[in-house]
């Protein structure tokens, strides 16, 4: 077989012999011809979503934090008043009126903590006049509250005497007298401080809707209002949050005011001749 024959054999058979390429070859080629566009688009989207997710997480956590916080806040409102009441002589007439309100509405609306505190504060006030004698007459008062409940009007002075024991020197009684909420502990301690030196702290809550209420005088009613507001506003707040999250995901402006999260507290106090005021915005 000559070289030419050999060449011809291969040339004839192989020169124009098509072999179908694999099906995915065209797709692979397409992918290689324009790959970068797809990748560049993906990146900012991913960044966007992670940012949105982070903020949603932040908001949910903050809601969760606020919920138990609401009770505490309510507790703190009368607490401040309580301190005021610790001032012995003058406050007594004032406290008489809210006391009545407590009797009327207290059981229905007001949560336990503020109510006990309110009564406690009154009791504190009332100590000054009748307390010490009452204390002696009712030794069982503090320990058994269940007995107290039915005959409230009569026993009231005595039951409320329970916190009166704050004034008594015994430390154990102090511990018992303070209700379970942790905030009240501080209040009682500050109350004792207050008894040593007259000190007044006024807390004002500025809500968007509600007028700045003077908590110092009307203890119960603002708390009551707050209750209602909170009940309504949680629904509103959830709506607002979803709206803001939506805004966020669409790249619009986020307004925290709409969430109703903005509260500002104004604190005022006088020490000696100096008057100190502080505004806290949440």
């Amino acid at each position, binding site marked *: *077989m000559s*070289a030419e024959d050999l*060449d011809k054999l291969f*040339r004839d058979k*192989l020169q124009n*012999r098509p*072999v*179908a*390429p*694999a099906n995915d070859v065209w797709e692979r080629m397409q992918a290689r011809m324009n790959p970068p566009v797809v990748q560049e688009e993906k990146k900012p989207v991913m960044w966007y979503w992670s940012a949105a997710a982070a903020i949603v997480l932040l908001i949910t956590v903050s809601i969760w934090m606020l919920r138990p916080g609401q009770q505490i806040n309510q507790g703190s409102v009368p607490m401040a008043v309580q301190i005021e009441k610790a001032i012995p002589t003058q406050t007594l007439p004032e406290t008489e009126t809210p006391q009545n309100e407590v009797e009327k509405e207290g059981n229905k609306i007001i949560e336990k903590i503020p109510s006990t505190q309110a009564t406690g504060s009154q009791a504190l006030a009332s100590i000054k006049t009748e307390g010490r004698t009452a204390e002696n007459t009712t030794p069982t008062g503090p320990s058994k509250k269940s007995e107290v409940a039915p005959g409230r009007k009569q026993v009231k002075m005595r039951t409320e005497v329970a916190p009166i024991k704050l004034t008594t020197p015994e430390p154990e009684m102090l511990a018992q007298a303070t209700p379970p909420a942790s905030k009240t502990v501080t209040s009682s301690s500050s109350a004792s401080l207050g008894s040593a030196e007259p000190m007044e702290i006024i807390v004002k809550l500025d809500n968007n809707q509600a007028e700045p209420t003077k908590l110092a005088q009307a203890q119960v009613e603002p708390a009551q209002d707050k209750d209602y507001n909170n009940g309504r506003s949680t629904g509103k707040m959830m709506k607002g949050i979803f709206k803001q999250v939506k805004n966020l995901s669409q790249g619009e402006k986020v307004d925290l005011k709409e969430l109703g999260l903005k509260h500002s507290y104004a604190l005022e106090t006088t020490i000696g001749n100096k008057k100190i005021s502080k505004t806290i915005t949440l």
Partner: protein
Amino acid sequence: MNELDLVKALQTGDAKAQRFLYERYGGPMMGVCLRYLKNEMDAEEVLINGFMKVYQHVDRFEQKGSFEGWVRRIMVNEALQYLRKKEPLHLAIEKDHLHLASEDAAPDSDMSAEELMEMLHDLPAGYRAVFNLYAIEGYSHKEIAEMLNISEGTSKSQLSKARAMLQRMLAEQGITIDI
């Protein structure tokens, strides 16, 4: 669509024309690539690179020869470049693991293209390249020497060694058939 229209459409970057070109020449060009590279994946790689080059440089096509010839040349060059990168051509270093072909091997017209392709693939890459270029593609030794960056003498000796190997393979094939 005739060749001229196809080229014009390709020169505007028309995606349909690109697809059409692939449909028409994908098979034949894959056949070309497979003559140089026995690994199918390598051949596909060369095919893809070759078509991308055709799309990119279709402006440079002058209407002298046939468009298919131009495309084929690009594929061959891609294949050689790939060979050079992937497996050094061993153009000069081939050991003498070949004996002279037995002269009595008769041309067998019944040989299938697949069998011939297998034989081609059994050649060392350098021999295969030179044989492909000279015997099948029809390049001269001078052209081959330039394309592979070797001397003309080396091209000639590579070709004769490749032929000898193929003749031996054909003879063995004939023997096995005879038995």
